[in-house]
Protein backbone atom coordinates (compact mmCIF):
# COMPACT_ATOMS: atom_id res chain seq x y z
CA UNK A 1 0.00 0.00 0.00
CA UNK A 2 1.50 3.27 -1.16
CA UNK A 3 1.15 6.34 0.93
CA UNK A 4 -0.38 9.48 -0.53
CA UNK A 5 3.00 11.10 -0.48
CA UNK A 6 4.50 8.38 -2.67
CA UNK A 7 1.61 8.58 -5.11
CA UNK A 8 2.17 12.31 -5.46
CA UNK A 9 5.89 11.85 -6.04
CA UNK A 10 5.22 9.17 -8.66
CA UNK A 11 2.86 11.46 -10.50
CA UNK A 12 5.49 14.17 -10.66
CA UNK A 13 8.06 11.63 -11.83
CA UNK A 14 5.73 10.47 -14.64
CA UNK A 15 5.10 14.07 -15.68
CA UNK A 16 8.81 14.76 -15.82
CA UNK A 17 9.44 11.62 -17.85
CA UNK A 18 6.74 12.61 -20.31
CA UNK A 19 8.30 16.06 -20.69
CA UNK A 20 11.69 14.46 -21.34
CA UNK A 21 10.11 12.16 -23.97
CA UNK A 22 8.56 15.11 -25.80
CA UNK A 23 11.85 16.99 -25.76
CA UNK A 24 13.71 13.93 -27.02
CA UNK A 25 11.23 13.46 -29.87
CA UNK A 26 11.60 17.12 -30.84
CA UNK A 27 15.37 16.78 -30.75
CA UNK A 28 15.28 13.61 -32.86
CA UNK A 29 12.99 15.32 -35.37
CA UNK A 30 15.30 18.33 -35.61
CA UNK A 31 18.45 16.24 -36.03
CA UNK A 32 16.61 14.08 -38.54
CA UNK A 33 15.64 17.10 -40.66
CA UNK A 34 19.14 18.50 -40.46
CA UNK A 35 20.83 15.22 -41.40
CA UNK A 36 18.55 14.31 -44.27
CA UNK A 37 17.87 17.69 -45.90
CA UNK A 38 21.55 18.60 -46.38
CA UNK A 39 23.94 16.84 -48.67
CA UNK A 40 24.51 17.30 -52.38
CA UNK A 41 22.32 14.88 -54.33
CA UNK A 42 24.20 12.60 -56.69
CA UNK A 43 22.90 11.74 -60.16
CA UNK A 44 21.12 8.77 -58.69
CA UNK A 45 19.67 10.95 -55.92
CA UNK A 46 18.37 13.38 -58.51
CA UNK A 47 16.47 10.57 -60.15
CA UNK A 48 15.06 9.37 -56.82
CA UNK A 49 13.82 12.91 -56.25
CA UNK A 50 12.17 12.92 -59.67
CA UNK A 51 10.27 9.73 -58.87
CA UNK A 52 9.01 11.21 -55.61
CA UNK A 53 8.03 14.43 -57.40
CA UNK A 54 5.91 12.31 -59.68
CA UNK A 55 4.16 10.57 -56.82
CA UNK A 56 3.85 13.53 -54.43
CA UNK A 57 3.31 16.31 -56.96
CA UNK A 58 1.97 15.15 -60.29
CA UNK A 59 -0.43 12.59 -58.89
CA UNK A 60 -1.75 15.09 -56.29
CA UNK A 61 -2.51 17.62 -59.00
CA UNK A 62 -5.93 16.19 -59.84
CA UNK A 63 -7.42 16.41 -56.34
CA UNK A 64 -5.89 19.85 -55.75
CA UNK A 65 -7.17 21.26 -59.03
CA UNK A 66 -10.68 19.88 -58.59
CA UNK A 67 -10.89 21.20 -55.01
CA UNK A 68 -9.58 24.57 -56.17
CA UNK A 69 -12.20 24.79 -58.87
CA UNK A 70 -15.05 24.08 -56.48
CA UNK A 71 -13.73 26.39 -53.76
CA UNK A 72 -13.39 29.24 -56.26
CA UNK A 73 -16.89 28.60 -57.54
CA UNK A 74 -18.41 28.49 -54.08
CA UNK A 75 -16.55 31.66 -53.05
CA UNK A 76 -17.97 33.49 -56.04
CA UNK A 77 -21.47 32.22 -55.34
CA UNK A 78 -21.40 33.12 -51.65
CA UNK A 79 -19.62 36.41 -52.23
CA UNK A 80 -22.06 37.45 -54.91
CA UNK A 81 -25.16 36.97 -52.76
CA UNK A 82 -23.63 39.21 -50.06
CA UNK A 83 -22.00 41.81 -52.30
CA UNK A 84 -25.11 42.26 -54.44
CA UNK A 85 -26.97 43.53 -51.36
CA UNK A 86 -24.55 46.46 -51.23
CA UNK A 87 -24.54 46.96 -54.98
CA UNK A 88 -20.85 46.08 -54.94
CA UNK A 89 -20.82 42.91 -57.04
CA UNK A 90 -18.01 44.41 -59.14
CA UNK A 91 -15.75 43.71 -56.18
CA UNK A 92 -16.30 39.98 -56.62
CA UNK A 93 -13.00 39.42 -58.44
CA UNK A 94 -11.11 41.21 -55.71
CA UNK A 95 -12.79 39.15 -53.00
CA UNK A 96 -12.23 35.81 -54.73
CA UNK A 97 -8.59 36.53 -55.62
CA UNK A 98 -7.57 37.93 -52.26
CA UNK A 99 -9.20 35.22 -50.17
CA UNK A 100 -7.75 32.51 -52.42
CA UNK A 101 -4.22 33.86 -52.68
CA UNK A 102 -3.81 34.95 -49.09
CA UNK A 103 -5.54 32.13 -47.24
CA UNK A 104 -7.40 29.38 -48.98
CA UNK A 105 -4.89 28.25 -51.58
CA UNK A 106 -1.95 27.77 -49.18
CA UNK A 107 -4.05 26.29 -46.37
CA UNK A 108 -6.41 24.00 -48.27
CA UNK A 109 -3.67 22.78 -50.61
CA UNK A 110 -1.53 21.96 -47.56
CA UNK A 111 -4.39 20.09 -45.85
CA UNK A 112 -5.10 18.10 -49.01
CA UNK A 113 -1.40 17.44 -49.43
CA UNK A 114 -1.17 16.13 -45.87
CA UNK A 115 -4.05 13.78 -46.52
CA UNK A 116 -3.09 12.67 -50.01
CA UNK A 117 0.71 12.58 -49.93
CA UNK A 118 1.74 12.92 -46.27
CA UNK A 119 -0.13 9.87 -45.04
CA UNK A 120 1.22 7.79 -47.93
CA UNK A 121 4.79 8.86 -47.15
CA UNK A 122 4.37 7.86 -43.51
CA UNK A 123 2.89 4.48 -44.36
CA UNK A 124 5.54 3.73 -46.99
CA UNK A 125 8.51 4.60 -44.81
CA UNK A 126 6.86 2.91 -41.82
CA UNK A 127 6.45 -0.33 -43.73
CA UNK A 128 10.06 -0.10 -44.89
CA UNK A 129 11.06 0.16 -41.25
CA UNK A 130 8.73 -2.63 -40.10
CA UNK A 131 10.08 -5.01 -42.75
CA UNK A 132 13.63 -3.96 -41.81
CA UNK A 133 14.46 -2.59 -45.24
CA UNK A 134 15.99 0.50 -43.64
CA UNK A 135 18.20 -1.63 -41.40
CA UNK A 136 19.35 -3.75 -44.33
CA UNK A 137 20.27 -0.61 -46.26
CA UNK A 138 22.50 0.41 -43.37
CA UNK A 139 24.02 -3.10 -43.38
CA UNK A 140 25.09 -2.77 -47.00
CA UNK A 141 26.47 0.70 -46.38
CA UNK A 142 23.68 2.83 -47.87
CA UNK A 143 22.54 5.73 -45.72
CA UNK A 144 18.72 5.46 -45.56
CA UNK A 145 18.46 9.14 -44.65
CA UNK A 146 19.99 10.09 -47.99
CA UNK A 147 18.58 7.26 -50.06
CA UNK A 148 14.99 7.15 -48.77
CA UNK A 149 14.26 10.26 -46.73
CA UNK A 150 16.02 13.12 -48.52
CA UNK A 151 14.33 12.67 -51.93
CA UNK A 152 10.91 12.55 -50.29
CA UNK A 153 11.59 15.66 -48.20
CA UNK A 154 12.82 17.69 -51.16
CA UNK A 155 10.00 16.50 -53.39
CA UNK A 156 7.50 17.73 -50.81
CA UNK A 157 9.25 21.09 -50.42
CA UNK A 158 9.05 21.74 -54.17
CA UNK A 159 5.69 20.13 -54.96
CA UNK A 160 3.41 21.90 -52.47
CA UNK A 161 4.16 25.49 -53.60
CA UNK A 162 3.51 24.43 -57.21
CA UNK A 163 0.25 22.77 -56.18
CA UNK A 164 -0.70 25.97 -54.35
CA UNK A 165 -0.17 28.02 -57.49
CA UNK A 166 -2.38 25.55 -59.38
CA UNK A 167 -5.04 25.79 -56.69
CA UNK A 168 -5.06 29.59 -56.85
CA UNK A 169 -5.18 29.81 -60.63
CA UNK A 170 -7.96 27.26 -60.99
CA UNK A 171 -9.89 28.82 -58.09
CA UNK A 172 -9.80 32.26 -59.70
CA UNK A 173 -10.93 30.71 -62.95
CA UNK A 174 -13.77 28.92 -61.11
CA UNK A 175 -14.81 32.25 -59.58
CA UNK A 176 -14.80 33.71 -63.08
CA UNK A 177 -17.01 30.88 -64.37
CA UNK A 178 -19.63 31.36 -61.68
CA UNK A 179 -19.40 35.13 -61.22
CA UNK A 180 -19.07 36.26 -64.82
CA UNK A 181 -20.48 33.46 -66.95
CA UNK A 182 -23.34 32.43 -64.73
CA UNK A 183 -24.30 35.32 -62.42
CA UNK A 184 -23.52 38.05 -64.93
CA UNK A 185 -20.92 40.21 -63.20
CA UNK A 186 -19.30 42.44 -65.82
CA UNK A 187 -16.13 40.71 -67.01
CA UNK A 188 -14.07 43.89 -67.17
CA UNK A 189 -14.75 44.84 -63.56
CA UNK A 190 -14.05 41.27 -62.39
CA UNK A 191 -10.48 41.43 -63.70
CA UNK A 192 -9.76 45.14 -63.25
CA UNK A 193 -10.90 45.25 -59.61
CA UNK A 194 -8.74 42.19 -59.03
CA UNK A 195 -5.72 43.78 -60.70
CA UNK A 196 -6.20 47.02 -58.79
CA UNK A 197 -6.24 45.31 -55.40
CA UNK A 198 -3.92 42.31 -55.67
CA UNK A 199 -0.25 43.12 -55.24
CA UNK A 200 2.21 40.57 -56.58
CA UNK A 201 4.73 40.88 -53.76
CA UNK A 202 2.50 41.26 -50.73
CA UNK A 203 -0.35 38.94 -51.78
CA UNK A 204 1.01 36.35 -54.22
CA UNK A 205 4.48 36.46 -52.64
CA UNK A 206 3.25 36.11 -49.07
CA UNK A 207 0.95 33.29 -50.12
CA UNK A 208 3.95 31.51 -51.62
CA UNK A 209 5.98 32.01 -48.44
CA UNK A 210 3.11 30.53 -46.43
CA UNK A 211 2.92 27.61 -48.79
CA UNK A 212 6.66 26.95 -48.55
CA UNK A 213 6.47 26.97 -44.74
CA UNK A 214 3.54 24.55 -44.85
CA UNK A 215 5.41 22.34 -47.30
CA UNK A 216 8.40 22.07 -44.98
CA UNK A 217 6.25 21.39 -41.91
CA UNK A 218 3.88 18.85 -43.50
CA UNK A 219 6.59 16.85 -45.28
CA UNK A 220 8.80 16.91 -42.22
CA UNK A 221 6.03 15.63 -39.97
CA UNK A 222 5.01 12.93 -42.48
CA UNK A 223 8.50 11.61 -43.08
CA UNK A 224 9.55 11.79 -39.45
CA UNK A 225 6.44 9.99 -38.23
CA UNK A 226 7.23 7.20 -40.68
CA UNK A 227 10.86 7.00 -39.66
CA UNK A 228 10.24 7.16 -35.92
CA UNK A 229 7.25 4.84 -35.51
CA UNK A 230 6.97 1.61 -33.56
CA UNK A 231 7.55 -1.02 -36.28
CA UNK A 232 4.31 -2.97 -35.93
CA UNK A 233 1.13 -2.87 -37.99
CA UNK A 234 -0.60 -0.97 -35.19
CA UNK A 235 2.32 1.43 -35.01
CA UNK A 236 2.01 2.20 -38.71
CA UNK A 237 -1.69 2.94 -38.48
CA UNK A 238 -1.15 5.16 -35.42
CA UNK A 239 1.66 7.04 -37.14
CA UNK A 240 -0.40 7.61 -40.28
CA UNK A 241 -3.21 9.06 -38.18
CA UNK A 242 -0.75 11.22 -36.26
CA UNK A 243 0.68 12.55 -39.53
CA UNK A 244 -2.68 13.84 -40.71
CA UNK A 245 -3.71 15.20 -37.30
CA UNK A 246 -0.40 16.89 -36.49
CA UNK A 247 0.04 18.35 -39.97
CA UNK A 248 -3.48 19.76 -40.06
CA UNK A 249 -3.08 21.35 -36.64
CA UNK A 250 0.37 22.68 -37.48
CA UNK A 251 -0.85 24.16 -40.77
CA UNK A 252 -3.85 25.89 -39.22
CA UNK A 253 -1.91 27.15 -36.23
CA UNK A 254 1.03 28.40 -38.28
CA UNK A 255 -1.40 30.01 -40.71
CA UNK A 256 -2.73 32.20 -37.94
CA UNK A 257 0.76 33.21 -36.85
CA UNK A 258 1.92 33.91 -40.41
CA UNK A 259 -1.24 35.88 -41.23
CA UNK A 260 -0.79 37.96 -38.11
CA UNK A 261 2.81 38.74 -39.09
CA UNK A 262 2.15 39.33 -42.81
CA UNK A 263 -1.22 41.04 -42.94
CA UNK A 264 -2.05 41.92 -39.33
CA UNK A 265 0.38 44.81 -39.21
CA UNK A 266 2.47 43.25 -36.45
Amino acid at each position, binding site marked *: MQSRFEQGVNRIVRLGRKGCDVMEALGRAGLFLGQSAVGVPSR*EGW*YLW*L*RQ*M*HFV*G*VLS*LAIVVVSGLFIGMVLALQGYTILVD*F*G*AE*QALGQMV*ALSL*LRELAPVVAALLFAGRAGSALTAEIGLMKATEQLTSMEMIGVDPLRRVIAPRLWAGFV*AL*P*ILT*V*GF*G*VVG*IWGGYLVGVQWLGVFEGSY*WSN*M*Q*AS*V*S*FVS*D*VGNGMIKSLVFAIVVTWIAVFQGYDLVPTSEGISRATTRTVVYSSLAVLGLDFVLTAVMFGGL
Partner: protein
Amino acid sequence: MKRSKTMEFGVGLFMLAGIIGLVFLGLRVSGLSLAAPSETFRLDANFANIGGLKPRARVTMAGVTVGRVESIDLDTEWYDAKVTLRLDSGLEGQLSRDTTAAILTAGLLGEQYIGLSVGGDPDMLADGDTIRDTQSALVLEELIQQFVSNMASN
Protein backbone atom coordinates in the same frame (compact mmCIF):
# COMPACT_ATOMS: atom_id res chain seq x y z
CA MET B 1 17.11 1.76 -61.82
CA LYS B 2 14.58 1.67 -64.62
CA ARG B 3 14.10 5.08 -66.16
CA SER B 4 10.70 6.08 -67.36
CA LYS B 5 10.42 8.77 -70.00
CA THR B 6 6.73 9.39 -69.37
CA MET B 7 7.37 10.02 -65.69
CA GLU B 8 10.16 12.48 -66.42
CA PHE B 9 7.92 14.17 -68.93
CA GLY B 10 5.07 14.35 -66.39
CA VAL B 11 7.26 15.96 -63.73
CA GLY B 12 8.60 18.42 -66.29
CA LEU B 13 5.09 19.32 -67.34
CA PHE B 14 4.11 19.74 -63.68
CA MET B 15 6.95 22.17 -63.00
CA LEU B 16 6.19 24.07 -66.20
CA ALA B 17 2.52 24.32 -65.18
CA GLY B 18 3.65 25.80 -61.86
CA ILE B 19 5.72 28.47 -63.61
CA ILE B 20 2.94 29.29 -66.07
CA GLY B 21 0.50 29.53 -63.16
CA LEU B 22 2.79 31.97 -61.37
CA VAL B 23 3.07 34.07 -64.53
CA PHE B 24 -0.73 34.08 -64.79
CA LEU B 25 -1.00 35.23 -61.17
CA GLY B 26 1.51 37.97 -61.90
CA LEU B 27 0.15 39.29 -65.17
CA ARG B 28 -3.56 38.63 -65.11
CA VAL B 29 -4.36 38.70 -61.39
CA SER B 30 -2.00 41.28 -59.94
CA GLY B 31 -1.79 43.33 -63.13
CA LEU B 32 1.99 43.47 -63.51
CA SER B 33 3.01 44.33 -67.04
CA LEU B 34 5.85 42.66 -68.91
CA ALA B 35 6.96 45.96 -70.40
CA ALA B 36 9.58 47.82 -68.40
CA PRO B 37 7.93 50.19 -65.93
CA SER B 38 7.09 53.21 -68.02
CA GLU B 39 8.67 56.55 -67.30
CA THR B 40 6.86 58.50 -64.62
CA PHE B 41 7.12 61.81 -62.85
CA ARG B 42 6.08 62.92 -59.41
CA LEU B 43 3.59 65.51 -58.21
CA ASP B 44 2.53 66.33 -54.67
CA ALA B 45 -0.93 67.43 -53.60
CA ASN B 46 -2.06 68.54 -50.15
CA PHE B 47 -5.57 67.67 -49.08
CA ALA B 48 -7.42 68.79 -45.94
CA ASN B 49 -9.01 65.35 -45.69
CA ILE B 50 -8.29 62.29 -47.79
CA GLY B 51 -11.20 60.21 -46.52
CA GLY B 52 -10.49 56.59 -47.42
CA LEU B 53 -7.85 57.14 -50.11
CA LYS B 54 -5.16 54.45 -50.11
CA PRO B 55 -1.72 54.08 -51.69
CA ARG B 56 -1.91 52.50 -55.18
CA ALA B 57 -5.27 54.20 -55.81
CA ARG B 58 -5.85 55.35 -59.38
CA VAL B 59 -5.21 58.88 -60.61
CA THR B 60 -7.51 59.70 -63.51
CA MET B 61 -8.02 62.48 -65.93
CA ALA B 62 -11.37 62.63 -67.76
CA GLY B 63 -11.85 59.08 -66.49
CA VAL B 64 -8.65 57.76 -68.06
CA THR B 65 -6.11 56.30 -65.64
CA VAL B 66 -2.91 58.34 -65.90
CA GLY B 67 -1.08 57.27 -62.75
CA ARG B 68 -1.23 55.97 -59.20
CA VAL B 69 -0.98 57.29 -55.66
CA GLU B 70 2.52 56.48 -54.47
CA SER B 71 2.36 57.44 -50.80
CA ILE B 72 0.28 59.36 -48.28
CA ASP B 73 1.91 61.17 -45.36
CA LEU B 74 0.87 63.66 -42.74
CA ASP B 75 2.38 67.06 -43.45
CA THR B 76 3.28 68.30 -39.96
CA GLU B 77 3.81 71.85 -41.21
CA TRP B 78 0.20 72.34 -42.22
CA TYR B 79 -1.37 69.33 -40.51
CA ASP B 80 -2.96 68.12 -43.68
CA ALA B 81 -2.39 65.07 -45.86
CA LYS B 82 0.46 65.13 -48.36
CA VAL B 83 -0.33 62.76 -51.24
CA THR B 84 2.46 61.86 -53.66
CA LEU B 85 1.30 60.98 -57.16
CA ARG B 86 3.20 59.09 -59.88
CA LEU B 87 1.98 60.12 -63.31
CA ASP B 88 2.91 58.95 -66.82
CA SER B 89 5.74 61.03 -68.17
CA GLY B 90 3.67 61.80 -71.28
CA LEU B 91 1.91 64.38 -69.11
CA GLU B 92 5.09 66.02 -67.85
CA GLY B 93 4.98 69.69 -68.83
CA GLN B 94 1.42 69.28 -70.12
CA LEU B 95 -0.49 70.06 -66.90
CA SER B 96 -1.09 73.72 -66.19
CA ARG B 97 -0.06 75.22 -62.86
CA ASP B 98 -3.70 75.66 -61.78
CA THR B 99 -4.62 71.97 -62.35
CA THR B 100 -7.08 70.84 -59.70
CA ALA B 101 -7.05 67.50 -57.91
CA ALA B 102 -10.20 66.10 -56.34
CA ILE B 103 -10.76 62.91 -54.37
CA LEU B 104 -13.71 61.12 -55.94
CA THR B 105 -15.56 57.93 -55.15
CA ALA B 106 -16.44 55.21 -57.64
CA GLY B 107 -20.10 54.52 -56.93
CA LEU B 108 -21.64 55.10 -53.53
CA LEU B 109 -19.45 52.71 -51.60
CA GLY B 110 -16.67 52.06 -54.11
CA GLU B 111 -12.97 52.76 -53.88
CA GLN B 112 -11.70 56.33 -53.81
CA TYR B 113 -9.48 57.77 -56.51
CA ILE B 114 -8.06 61.10 -57.57
CA GLY B 115 -9.44 63.02 -60.52
CA LEU B 116 -7.31 65.71 -62.15
CA SER B 117 -8.67 68.46 -64.34
CA VAL B 118 -6.54 71.01 -66.17
CA GLY B 119 -6.90 74.75 -65.85
CA GLY B 120 -5.88 77.57 -68.17
CA ASP B 121 -2.58 78.79 -66.73
CA PRO B 122 0.20 79.06 -69.37
CA ASP B 123 2.79 77.86 -66.81
CA MET B 124 3.12 74.09 -66.54
CA LEU B 125 3.73 71.79 -63.56
CA ALA B 126 7.14 70.10 -63.53
CA ASP B 127 8.46 67.02 -61.71
CA GLY B 128 8.20 67.44 -57.92
CA ASP B 129 5.79 70.39 -57.99
CA THR B 130 2.79 70.66 -55.71
CA ILE B 131 -0.81 70.95 -56.86
CA ARG B 132 -2.30 73.86 -54.92
CA ASP B 133 -5.95 73.66 -55.86
CA THR B 134 -7.37 70.53 -54.24
CA GLN B 135 -10.78 69.30 -53.22
CA SER B 136 -11.03 66.98 -50.23
CA ALA B 137 -12.87 63.72 -50.06
CA LEU B 138 -16.56 63.79 -49.45
CA VAL B 139 -17.07 62.46 -45.95
CA LEU B 140 -20.64 61.31 -45.58
CA GLU B 141 -20.82 61.93 -41.82
CA GLU B 142 -19.74 65.56 -42.17
CA LEU B 143 -22.27 66.08 -44.91
CA ILE B 144 -25.07 64.68 -42.77
CA GLN B 145 -23.93 66.78 -39.80
CA GLN B 146 -24.05 69.91 -41.94
CA PHE B 147 -27.47 69.00 -43.22
CA VAL B 148 -28.80 68.35 -39.72
CA SER B 149 -27.42 71.60 -38.30
CA ASN B 150 -28.89 73.53 -41.23
CA MET B 151 -32.24 71.93 -40.56
CA ALA B 152 -32.01 72.86 -36.89
CA SER B 153 -31.15 76.52 -37.55
CA ASN B 154 -34.03 76.94 -40.00
